[in-house]
C-alpha cells in the first residue's frame, strides 16, 4: 500500500461518486413514490445524454439551451414511460414490473443505436480542463499532493445541491408531501384525493432529469457511448448500501461506492487485487445484503400476514 497516494485516490473517488450519487438519487425517488426498482435508469440517462449531445453538437444550440432542452425531453420521456408502460401494470406482481423496466431498457438500448448509432462520441467540454491544485501538505516524510479535475468538483457540487433541493422539496412542498404519502400507501393516498398516477409520472420525470444531469457530467469527463448506461449498475450497490428509502443514504452510498472503487484501483500493490475495482461495488453489495439488507439508512419493514 502506498499511503502517500491515499488522499488523492480517496478524494478523486469521492468526487467520482458524485454522478453515481445523482443516478442513485433518481432510483430512490422512483422507489420512494412507487416501490418500483428501475432497471431502465441507465438507459434513460444514456438517451438523455445522447439527446443533449445531439442538441449541442449537431443542432449547435448554446450550452444552457441544449442541456435544458434535453432535460425537458427526458422529463417527457418519464411521463410517457409511466403512461404507456407502467400504468397498465398497476396491481401486477413485482416481477412483472421489474421485467417491464428491463424490457424498457432493451427498447431504449436499441433505440439509442438506431437514433445515434453505436459510435463513441466526444461530449463538448462544459468545464475548463485546468485542474485545481490543493496546497501540498508534508507529514513526516511523505508529501501529500491532491489534484482535482474541475468536472469532478462541479459534478460533486451539483450532486450536493440536488440533495439539498430534494430534501427541501420533500419536506416543505405540497407535492413532496403528496409523494411521501403515496410512497406510504397507494390506497390511502388515493382516498384522500391524490392522483397517484400523476405522482408516479412526476417521480419518473424528476428521476430521469436527475440521472441525466449525472450522465452529462460523466460524459463531459470520459466521453459518450452506449456503455454510459453501465453507471446505473453501479448506482444499484450505492442505493442498497445507503438504504432504499433514504435520500441522504443514496448520496452517501454513491460517494462511498466511488471512493471504494478508486481506492481498490489505486492502492494495493498486487495487480490482481487492483484489477478487482470494477467488481468492488458488487462485493460491497453482497456484503451489505447479508449483513444489513435494509442498508445504512433504510427502513426495516415488519411484515404481517
Amino acid at each position, binding site marked *: 500500500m502506498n499511503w502517500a497516494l491515499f488522499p488523492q485516490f480517496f478524494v478523486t473517488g469521492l468526487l467520482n461518486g458524485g454522478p453515481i450519487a445523482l443516478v442513485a438519487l433518481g432510483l430512490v425517488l422512483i422507489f420512494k413514490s412507487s416501490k418500483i*426498482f428501475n432497471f431502465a435508469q441507465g438507459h434513460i440517462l444514456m438517451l438523455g445524454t445522447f439527446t443533449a449531445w445531439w442538441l449541442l453538437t449537431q443542432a449547435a444550440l448554446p450550452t444552457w439551451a441544449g442541456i435544458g432542452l434535453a432535460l425537458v425531453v427526458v422529463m417527457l420521456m418519464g411521463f410517457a414511460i409511466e403512461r404507456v*408502460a407502467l400504468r*397498465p*401494470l398497476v396491481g*401486477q406482481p*413485482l*416481477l*412483472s414490473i*421489474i*421485467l*417491464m423496466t*428491463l*424490457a*424498457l*431498457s*432493451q*427498447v*431504449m*438500448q*436499441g*433505440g439509442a*443505436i*438506431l437514433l445515434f*448509432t*453505436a459510435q463513441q462520441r466526444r461530449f463538448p467540454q462544459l468545464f475548463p480542463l485546468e485542474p485545481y491544485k490543493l496546497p501540498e501538505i508534508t507529514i513526516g516524510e511523505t508529501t501529500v499532493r491532491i489534484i482535482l479535475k474541475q468536472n469532478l468538483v462541479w459534478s460533486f457540487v451539483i450532486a450536493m445541491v440536488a440533495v439539498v433541493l430534494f430534501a427541501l422539496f420533500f419536506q416543505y412542498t405540497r407535492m413532496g408531501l403528496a409523494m411521501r404519502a403515496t410512497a406510504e400507501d397507494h390506497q390511502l393516498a388515493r382516498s384522500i384525493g391524490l392522483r397517484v398516477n400523476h405522482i408516479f409520472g412526476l417521480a419518473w420525470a424528476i428521476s430521469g432529469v436527475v440521472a441525466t444531469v449525472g450522465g452529462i457530467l460523466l460524459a463531459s469527463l470520459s466521453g459518450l457511448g452506449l456503455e454510459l448506461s453501465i453507471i446505473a*449498475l453501479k448506482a*444499484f*450497490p450505492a442505493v*442498497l448500501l445507503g438504504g432504499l428509502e433514504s435520500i441522504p443514504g443514496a448520496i452517501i452510498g454513491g460517494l462511498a461506492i466511488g471512493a471504494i472503487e478508486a481506492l481498490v484501483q489505486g492502492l494495493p500493490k498486487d495487480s*490482481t487485487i487492483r*484489477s*478487482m475495482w*470494477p*467488481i468492488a461495488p*458488487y*462485493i460491497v*453489495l*453482497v456484503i451489505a*445484503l*447479508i449483513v444489513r*439488507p435494509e442498508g445504512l439508512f433504510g427502513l426495516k419493514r415488519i*411484515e*404481517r*400476514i
Partner: protein
Amino acid sequence: MALRVAGDFDTSYARDMATLRQPWHWWALLGFLAVLALLPQVAGSYLLGILNTIAITVITVQGLNILTGYAGQISLGQAAFMTVGGYISALLVSRLGLSFFVALPLAGLGAGLVGLAFGLPSLRVKGFYLAMATLAAQFIIPWFVRNAYRDVLNGAQGLVVPVPELAGVRFDTPNSYFYITLAVVCISTYVAHNIGRSRLGRALIAIRDNDLAAEVLGINPFKYKLQAFFISAFYAGVAGALWAHYTRHINSETFDLIDSVWFLGMVVIGGLGTSNGPIFGAVFVRLLREAVVLLSPALGRLFPALEANILAALGPIVFGTALMLFLIFEPHGLAHRWQVLKAAWRLRPFAH
C-alpha cells in the same frame, strides 16, 4: 387445470395424476420425438443450428423457471451460472481427460454449488434485493474467470473446448450434436415437469404466493429457496456446458447480463410457473430473433445510413417490445394461450 369434457372422469389416482392421459397422447409424443430424431438425417445444418440453440436455451430457461416461475425469486445471474458450467466442463474434459458425458453432470453440480453461494442472501432478503445479489454474480463470476488463475483459465482469451466423443463417434457437426441436446432436453423436461408437481414444486409455489404463510404451514422457506437456487443453477451449468462444447470455445463474455435478461423474458413470455412455458418462451424468442436476423438485410437496404447497426438495434427493440406487450396483454404467457386454445378446440362448436 385443463377443461375436460363433461362425463370424462378419472377412476384412479394414478390416472388423475397422469400427464399423458390418452393412448393417442403417447403416440403423439413418440411421433414427435421420432420426427426430431430423424431431422439430423434429412435437414440442413442451418436448421439444426437453430434447433441446437433453442434446445440449449430451453434447458437454461427451464432452470430459471423453477427459481423464478415456481419459487418467485428473481434471478439476473442465469448467464453467469452458464459460464461456470461451461468452464468446469471444458476444464474437466481438456485437463483431466474425462468423457464429456461424465463432465456434463459435474458441470451442472459445480454451477449448482456456485448458485447456492449466491442464493445465500435469500436467507435475509427477497424480491428485487435478491435480483441484486444475482446481479452481483453476473459481475463477479466473469471477472473471476477473466482474472483469476490465468494459467488454467487463460484470462480474457478463454478456453478452446474439445469436441465430445462417445465410442468413436465425434459430435462435431450441428446435425450430430443435436442428438446430445435432444437427449438432454428430454431428460430436463421430464425432471422439470415432475418437480413442478411434486412436494418440492408445491412448497416453492407456496413460498412464491406468500412466504410468511408458507412458513406458518411448516415449510422451511430458506431450505426450499436454496434448493430452487441449486436446481436452477444446475440447469444453467448443464446448458452452459452444452453450449461450450457446441461452439467449442468459451470465455468470460460468452454469456453476459443481456442473456440473463433475455432468459427472464423468455420465462415470462412462455408463462411463469408452467412446465411447458420455458419451451414456448425459448422457441418463440429464438424464432423471433431468427426472423430479425433474416429481415435485417432487407431493412438495411431501405435505410442505408443505419445498415451497419440495424441488427444490433432491432434485436433489443423487437425483444423488448414483445416482452412489454406480453406483460401488458398476456401476463400468463403463451402457456396460458395454449390452454385457452385447447379448451376452445375441445368445446367447439360451442362458445362456452
